[in-house]
């Protein structure tokens, strides 16, 4: 007795064959999803208790990153400025502005302003600002054009492949040390040539060290 029609032969062949493509497609969709901003929160600006704008303070007034992020050259943690730092200027400028009420309240009551974290690596990853900053990796390379951000967002994926892409090709990104805090830096000549020179000058270690698991997972 014939239960299946003859055409099912073709259908089964096609579907067997198609399954391979389907799985590949699924893999691709999954991979893109996992790199997408939906997963990594890249380019998503966060609400903050105070509408603090880097575009105003860095872009328009030209304050250096280190005025506020004082520990970025010396420590793993870049540092978020205490209320006192804001009051250096805002005791006089915009001193009545309602936007700044949370800052003044914090100063009066000695309670911290609670900023929302934007960049947050998992706790099993070790990251250190000081070595990057002191070996010529610019803030802009990782954080993007901070001077154009009215609210802070994360400009990079911050996934392992992103870290490794640089650790394997540091010559593509290194800058002279006096340009680390510059926004909108353009290399004077050929970046690869400059990068190789700087690699030697700064004593950047071998790729095998920089991509070794224990460099970042310790």
């Amino acid at each position: 007795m014939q239960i299946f029609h003859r055409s099912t032969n073709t259908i089964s062949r096609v579907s067997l064959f198609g399954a391979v493509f389907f799985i590949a497609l699924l893999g691709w969709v999954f991979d893109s999803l996992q790199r997408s901003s939906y997963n990594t929160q890249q380019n998503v600006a966060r609400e903050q208790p105070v509408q603090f704008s880097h575009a105003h303070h860095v872009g328009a007034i030209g304050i250096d990153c280190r005025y506020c992020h004082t520990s970025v050259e010396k420590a793993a943690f870049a540092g978020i400025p205490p209320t006192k730092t804001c009051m250096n200027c805002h005791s006089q400028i915009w001193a009545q502005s309602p936007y700044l009420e949370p800052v003044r309240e914090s100063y009066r009551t000695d309670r911290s302003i609670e900023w929302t974290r934007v960049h947050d690596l998992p706790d099993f990853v070790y990251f250190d600002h000081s070595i990057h900053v002191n070996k010529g990796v610019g803030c802009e390379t990782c954080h993007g054009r901070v001077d154009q951000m009215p609210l802070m967002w994360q400009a990079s994926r911050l996934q392992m492949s992103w870290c490794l892409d640089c650790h394997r090709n540091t010559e593509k990104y290194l800058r002279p040390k006096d340009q680390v805090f510059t926004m909108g830096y353009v290399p004077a000549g050929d970046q690869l040539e400059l990068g190789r020179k700087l690699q030697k000058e700064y004593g950047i270690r071998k790729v095998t060290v920089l991509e070794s698991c224990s460099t970042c997972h310790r």
Partner: protein
Amino acid sequence: MRVERKAAAVGLLLCAAAAAACRQEMYNQPRYKPLGRSDFFADNRQARPPVEGTVARGMLRADSRLYTGKEGNALVSVFPLPVTRALLDRGRQRYNIYCAPCHDRTGAGNGMVVQRGYRQPPSLHIDRLREQPVGHFFDVITNGLGAMPDYAAQIPVEDRWAIVAYVRALQLSQGARVGDVPPESRGELDRAKPTGEPSPASPEYPTLYKSAPIRGSGAGSVPGAQLDPGAPAGGVKAKPPK
């Protein structure tokens, strides 16, 4: 048979859920982090202040000249640490970070923040300030003065002295005449004639000999002043999450 399968499926699901939870545990481990929030302490800060009177090893600060700029009650007039080229370079860098927003890079007192309405500080090149001992500048940075905020929390002690040294160099340069430039360096004056606007992005201020303007006339060449104030204020590029 049916029941066993169901039980296995439920068990698997539970395992998966537990594993997912583990992942979160490892992502956000229950330990204290810099500036983290604590619900245990009354001030909600994980960072604890050291007990009052704590002195870290090697931080006794016994040298009052170095740490307060004073000897007894008198301001010191000699630097308590050697003034080297490296110290001056460091001072220039730190001055441009912490002081230039108000005092501007030449010290004339026309920084960007002053242009936005902050009280204008006196030029660092007035005679009264030229004649002040170095201890005075250190004291102003450490304790503030009038409308000037203190910078004790932002600038470590050695850096404060580096800034003072650089302020002295600025004062020298702003009053300098061609005759003060060593003959072998005078050629640089012509080469360094301002060719265009200094780039506002460049962290370097032209070297001491470069502009040597007449006293108090430097305000026009404040690098920060050339920034277009309104430029990047445009709309939010990315949407905040709802």
